[in-house]
């Protein structure tokens, strides 16, 4: 799903980023993971949520980058932040305390209950098929933010029935698991893909396709999913990007360093 809408000057990746930025409307504070979430969070500052407070695990609070940061420790973040605190402090006082509205995460693999794998692909932890970078800040972002938004392109190998390794808990395997594990945030509320948006069924915590992008056939989204994806009865269609969103996104992308 990397092609653009039929007659549009935007790709599904663009709409994925724009949809994520829209999802931040009305939020005050966002703990930003590396990669796609950082682009979307900065787009939100340029469009839906100018006063959004960006918090990165490097300890920068209230960063206002004028260009896209290449990593969560970019100097631009420190130089434009309200304050920079130590890494222990950002995790303990700011994240773990539950005071951040939204946690914004990417992933390598996600499952039906929104559990995330960023550790290993394959059945044997000690002899993995693919060794991924590992947990980083994701497990505690997923546990402690008031809600979590996940961005990940939808493919049968990445959207799987059950992840090979639970790096970060979405909903475990059933409602009540988060509470049982002592997690105080509500967990993932949206999984934003290049087909549309999945949301958890409140009764079962299973991810359900609830919105699609203009021109997307829900059956294609189902085919891109490694489990029998349910489609919401009230499936809706996301608005196409408007001119302001697209120009803000293009302006942001133009600031990105080469090596992203």
């Amino acid at each position, binding site marked *: 799903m990397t092609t653009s809408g039929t007659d549009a000057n935007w790709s599904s990746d663009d709409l994925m980023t724009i949809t994520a930025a829209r999802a931040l409307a009305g939020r005050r504070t966002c703990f930003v993971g590396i990669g796609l979430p950082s682009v979307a969070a900065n787009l939100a500052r340029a469009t839906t949520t100018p006063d959004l407070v960006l918090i990165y695990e490097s300890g920068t609070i209230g960063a206002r980058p004028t260009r896209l940061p290449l990593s969560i420790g970019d100097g631009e973040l420190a130089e434009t932040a309200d304050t920079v605190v130590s890494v*222990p402090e950002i995790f303990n006082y700011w994240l773990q305390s539950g005071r951040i509205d939204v946690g914004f995460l990417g992933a390598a693999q996600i499952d039906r209950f929104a559990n995330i794998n960023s550790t290993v692909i394959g059945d044997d932890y000690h002899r993995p098929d693919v*060794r991924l970078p*590992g947990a980083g800040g994701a497990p505690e972002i997923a546990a402690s933010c008031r809600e979590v938004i996940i961005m990940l392109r939808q493919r049968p190998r990445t959207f799987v029935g059950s992840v090979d390794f639970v790096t970060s808990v979405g909903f475990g395997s059933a409602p009540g698991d988060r509470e049982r594990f002592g997690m105080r945030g509500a967990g993932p509320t949206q999984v934003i893909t290049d087909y549309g948006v999945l949301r958890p069924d409140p009764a079962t915590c299973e991810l359900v396709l609830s919105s699609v992008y203009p021109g997307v056939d829900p059956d294609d989204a189902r085919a891109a999913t490694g489990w029998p994806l349910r489609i919401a009865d009230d499936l809706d269609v996301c608005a196409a990007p408007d001119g302001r969103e697209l120009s803000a996104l293009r302006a942001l992308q133009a600031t990105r360093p080469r090596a992203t």
Partner: protein
Amino acid sequence: MSPSTPIQDLSAAVATLVGDGDVVALEGFTHLIPFAAGHEIIRQGRRDLTLVRMTPDLLFDRMIGAGCAAKLVFSWGGNPGVGSLHRFRDAVATSWPRPLELEEHSHAGMANRYVAGAAGLPFAVMRGYRGTDLEQHTNVAPITCPFTGETLTAVPALEPDVAVIHAQRADRSGTVQLWGITGVQKEAVLAAKRALVTVEEVVDTLQPVAGAVILPSWTIDAVAVAPGGARPSYAQGYYARDNAAYLAWDAISRDRDRFAAWLDAVVMHGEPDPTLTDAR
């Protein structure tokens, strides 16, 4: 600690402070990564190290590829903004150049392990690990709050034999000042038995800087001057991150022979580093 000669030559400091088999933490969270010190450890041929770092980054990719490490303790092992660390992945997949034991944590877990070490406690308490598969594959334990009955997670203190960090500057007494993203460097130094700091420069007086961390000379065993010692990462106020070098590393590190040639030329024989933008 050597109160009489805090400012030392880097090779002498590494020779004195880092021994085979040591647990060595080299910290710097994206910023101020102590590359010069790490390269010196490679040059001196240290072996069987337990290397500790939240984000192994290119530095540990090199040290692992060079065969320094028996074990890696970490929390996020990627090439930031680029992709994978190929020497790290090769060591995990094929044990090249030698088997590498892994102990992995979350960032919050690693940070709290350093906090416990710096505070002289055997463990720290946090919310985390529960419900994840990490819990079964690493060294943590459940702990119950004696007041509320709630179950939380205990992580064991990190108390490295040596901590190595890079800072912007030190004064002549060896008191160190660093600023910008300061990561877990204070905790790593205070948690370790010995501490080595490389600096961009030594100055007569440390002018105050907002957000700076100060490590008094008596907490540090050696300070070595290493201008540019954090390249290709950055030193706020001195030089920017060399993003192209991180990208260039991807190609070099994918191939064992190219890596070996780079290591021999740049680290072992001091030739200009072709990955650095300045050197091209």
